């Protein structure tokens, strides 16, 4: 069970992701430099971390999407590997076209850093199987461009295929405009690809792994536990070691 964490020059949640997968969960983890054109077959899960890959100049993720390693990532995803894009990593996946849609500036035009409520819309993905549909969890967000856009046509498709995985909600789980911190279409906070192995989300599960830091709850762990479950089922991972 090995995590690969892709490092772009301006990534800044790469170390946090490493801390989560390696120090907290105890799984082998390795940084992968974006400029290396290397074979990824030794990895089981790839994480594209948050940050400001190229200062977010021009558009977040735009320049990173063209990094040499990204074609390898595309191949990894194409052959069914799990790819998780968090915040800026989500931007990169959007820019690569691995996930649909694009990001606009938050509707209040400000960077927003706070803990928010998220409703789980689809708990049958490899990233959310440890959660329950309709469950309300708490995760931090920290972004200036998280206003998710998708045209109506595609939105229909995503809804039909249950590919909207997370939505911003209020404490009771209602999808209301006041809880739509950045103005995303239909309060969308995370989406998945048709094959169900590439997942992007704006909130930061890696910041919600320990009660000591971040929100009091450790809701971020469920995402990692879900991914590890996939490998447990496949028999790759011995059952005692998942969290």
């Amino acid at each position, binding site marked *: 069970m090995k995590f690969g964490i892709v490092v772009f020059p301006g990534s800044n949640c790469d170390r946090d992701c490493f801390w989560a997968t390696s120090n907290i969960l105890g799984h082998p983890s390795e940084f992968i430099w974006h400029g290396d054109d290397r074979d990824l077959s030794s990895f089981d899960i790839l994480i594209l971390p948050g940050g400001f890959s190229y200062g977010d100049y*021009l558009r977040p993720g735009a320049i990173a999407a063209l990094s040499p390693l990204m074609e390898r990532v595309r191949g990894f995803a194409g052959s069914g590997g799990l790819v998780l894009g968090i915040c800026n990593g989500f931007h990169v996946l*959007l820019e690569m076209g691995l996930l649909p849609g694009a990001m*606009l*500036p*938050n509707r209040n035009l400000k960077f927003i850093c706070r803990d928010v409520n998220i409703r789980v819309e689809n708990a049958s993905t490899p990233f959310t199987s440890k959660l329950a549909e309709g469950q309300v969890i708490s995760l931090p967000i920290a972004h200036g461009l998280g206003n998710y*856009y998708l045209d109506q046509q595609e939105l229909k498709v995503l809804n039909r295929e249950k590919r909207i995985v997370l939505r911003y909600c209020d404490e009771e789980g209602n999808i209301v405009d006041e809880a739509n911190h950045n*103005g995303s279409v239909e309060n969308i906070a995370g989406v998945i690809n048709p094959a169900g192995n590439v997942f992007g989300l704006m909130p930061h599960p890696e910041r919600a792994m320990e009660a000591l830091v971040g929100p009091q709850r450790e809701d971020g762990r469920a995402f990692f536990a879900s991914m590890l479950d996939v490998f447990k089922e496949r028999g790759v991972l011995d059952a005692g070691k998942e969290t």
Partner: protein
Amino acid sequence: MKGRAEVRVMLKDTVSDPQGETLQRSLVSKGYDVSRVRAGKFLQLELTGYSREDIVARLEEICSDILSNPVIEDYEYDLEEVLE
């Protein structure tokens, strides 16, 4: 040949524009009769190629692959030759 291009990247008409809308509202609140604002990017590039066609071909690539995101944006450009 060396060319100087001016690229304008605009949000598609169908995409809402939080920046433009905020600007429009604040202009109206300051008393200006502004009915619509759309915000985009403006980029000046100096680039070299074998010929004008060559430069245009590269510029098209640069604009569509990097400078704009086709999901939400359109672009247009002017190219003029730089005499050295």
